[in-house]
């Protein structure tokens, strides 16, 4: 390989056919005299502009597009040299850092010698060692492009905002399960909004047996094994549900507050008593109607119950998870949009409550297709306010434009799977932790189950990795009509 040109933080390297370099690979451009080296990442592989190639190709196709047949008597075997020159490629690389005395420096302000520099592939383990991504809580995600194990540290997910995105069936949920399982094994508390029931079998192996995580997975299905008694609910949590999920106007909310206080004083916080109180409350008819319609929505969700024995405490699951590590899976499959919003409002309210009262230290929240249940104002809450309470969110989506631009800008880590659509790539490339060229060029060519890892987990060295297989029973597969 030979250094060809440098423009800004882009370096072009001439590579010959016997040197196999692919998009995403790292190269070390060493200048022995300067005692410095550039770490560059290949973001595109192009044909080198060799003079005469067009003529070469044209003359082999003179006969209506069919190759002209013939024999070449080439005693000096020049043909192999022609192929060698013709197949030379130009590697477009992005400068990631400068190495000087084994220390990394993000600068690209110097120019290595074009004639004296040596260029070689930089193995991913060496890069990770230089970048000091290793920690005490390793999570093995799979293998890097050079087949070396690719490990991140769980602490780099702690306190961070993460996004897992990519088009359908590329392995997003698989990666989120892998992260989840590893976090649980490090005794972390994980809460999952499971839209399609994909995470229900995290405690089972592929052949249906219990795995080591079985006791740490708590599946809560709203209105089935997950119900809430009004007595267990704080007023502000319920008001959150009424105002944000059920869009109760402010005046009606004030009246509801009064009703609630009166019932609580009388220790009559039941659905039945609440209904009666609304019926008999001395207020404007419109307000009563508004309160009644919301009351019926609560009743119809079957999420609320008067039977304390029937009510499962979310807090109990969270406490169990807090002590030994565990994942609370909120199964939102078969839940209507309104009910889903009610449940999510309740859980987020409860989580904040538990965290502010230090019943919980912190929780990792995994939210699949959050735009389907997260209200507008929560997005900002999650990236700013909730982070301080100790809720560290991972968004998982195949529609990157459903996540706001400010979320991308503040995301600490992005696990990017394949996207071919330009619009999707544009959206993701707004992330602050990576340049748009890298995202556009590498993400487009990622094979299934390969992700481009960006952000703090890799110390801003984008790394392509093949996500390893998990011995977990898969759920949430697409139901097929033609499947045998």
């Amino acid at each position, binding site marked *: 390989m030979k250094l060809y040109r440098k423009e800004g933080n882009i370096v072009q390297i001439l590579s010959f056919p016997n040197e196999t370099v692919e998009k995403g690979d790292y190269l070390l451009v060493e200048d022995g005299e300067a005692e410095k080296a550039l770490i560059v990442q290949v973001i595109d592989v192009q044909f080198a502009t*060799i*003079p*005469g*190639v067009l*003529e*070469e190709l044209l*003359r082999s196709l*003179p*006969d209506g597009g069919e190759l*002209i*047949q*013939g*024999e*070449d*008597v*080439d*005693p*000096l075997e*020049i043909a192999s*040299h*022609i192929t*060698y*020159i*013709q197949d030379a490629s130009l590697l477009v690389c992005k400068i990631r850092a400068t190495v000087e005395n084994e220390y990394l420096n993000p600068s690209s302000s110097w120019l290595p010698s074009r004639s004296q520099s040596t260029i070689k592939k930089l193995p991913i383990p060496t890069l990770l060692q230089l970048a000091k991504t290793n920690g005490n809580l390793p999570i093995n995600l799979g293998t890097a492009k050079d087949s070396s194990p690719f490990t991140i540290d769980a602490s780099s997910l702690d306190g961070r905002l993460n996004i897992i995105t990519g088009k359908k069936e590329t392995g997003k949920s698989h990666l989120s399960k892998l992260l989840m399982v590893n976090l649980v094994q490090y005794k972390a508390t994980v809460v999952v909004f499971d839209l399609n029931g994909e995470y229900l079998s995290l405690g089972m192996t592929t052949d249906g047996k219990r795995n080591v995580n079985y006791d740490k997975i708590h599946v809560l299905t709203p209105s089935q094994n997950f119900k809430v008694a009004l007595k267990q609910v704080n007023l502000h949590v319920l008001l959150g549900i009424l105002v944000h999920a059920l869009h109760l106007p402010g005046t009606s909310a004030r009246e509801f507050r009064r009703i609630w206080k009166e019932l609580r004083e009388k220790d009559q916080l039941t659905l039945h008593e609440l209904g009666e109180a609304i019926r008999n409350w001395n207020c404007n008819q419109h307000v009563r109607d508004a309160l009644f319609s919301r009351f019926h929505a609560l009743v119809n969700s079957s999420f609320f119950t008067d039977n304390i024995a029937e009510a499962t405490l979310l807090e109990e699951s969270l406490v169990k998870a807090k002590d030994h590590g565990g994942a609370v899976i909120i199964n939102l499959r078969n839940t209507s949009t309104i009910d889903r919003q009610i449940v999510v409002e309740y859980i987020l309210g409860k989580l904040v409550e538990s965290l502010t009262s230090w019943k919980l230290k912190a929780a990792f929240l995994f939210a699949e297709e959050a735009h389907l249940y997260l209200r507008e104002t929560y997005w900002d809450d999650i990236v700013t306010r909730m982070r301080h309470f100790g809720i560290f969110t991972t968004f998982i989506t195949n529609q990157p434009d459903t996540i706001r631009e400010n979320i991308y800008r503040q995301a600490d880590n992005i696990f990017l799977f394949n996207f071919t659509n330009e619009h999707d790539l544009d959206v993701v490339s707004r992330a602050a932790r990576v340049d748009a060229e890298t995202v556009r060029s590498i993400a487009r060519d990622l094979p299934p189950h390969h992700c481009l890892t960006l952000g703090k987990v890799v110390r801003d060295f984008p790394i392509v990795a093949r996500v390893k297989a998990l011995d977990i029973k898969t759920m949430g597969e697409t139901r097929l009509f033609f499947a045998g």
Partner: protein
Amino acid sequence: MVAAVDTSTMKIAETNTGIVIAVRGANVWKQKENYRYTRLGPFIFHITEENRKDIFNTLEKAYFTPTRDQNRQTAPTLQQMPTRIAGLLERWLQAMLTKTMNGGLILFDGSLTSGTTDTPIRRMKEILDNGRDRKNTVLAFSKMTNLRVNGCLITDFALDHRPPYLLQTLGLRLKPPMVTLGDVYVAKLSKGNCAFRLDIDHQIPPESRIEAVEKLLGNDLISQSYPETLRLAHILCTFTANEVLAMQHFITRKCGLQIINRPDMHRLLFGSFGKGENYS
């Protein structure tokens, strides 16, 4: 069958003692609907003042029987060597074709003029005789000609006649010792602006010559009055820039030579007013 021969040469480097050249030749023939080729080379020679005579004589002795005149001749100069070696290869390819083909049309690039230093009369005569013995007709197309009538190039005569047509030239005289072994025509074989000098072996009866051109029109693609077989032969033997790089790569690897770009004196002296040596 229609067959054609062409060769090309290229100087690929200069050394302290001489030049490095490459030569390549191509035979192309059209059989039924398909074109096929045999391409020989590239052959790379390092020619110096010391070895030029040996190289030329060795090649000539290996492929042709030297004529009495030739034995007295001196070897070409260093500058002439690329074209002379390519000329030797071209004549040898032509000779092989005339000795192996039967009842076909053989297209040469150039004229049937002989008696020059690179084409002795005997050698050209031998090639034509061999061809005739095997019922072949040699048609030689020249892209450029210096033959003029009343000061005008013969290929510039525009006849008010629909192509294809042949215009026969009469009373042509060449400077001795040059002679032409063919009758010279201006051939305009298709629509367009191009016409070419066409030499046809003069020992072939006139009606057979016309018949040969008719056969060519019927059996080969003609574009801009030029036969496709000959065009392909030219294309296949011409060196592309990529191939020159490859040959430079080859000599660097095999002979340990280091290629250095020679400073362009025009650019050096005249800056942006110097157009480079290629334009001088």
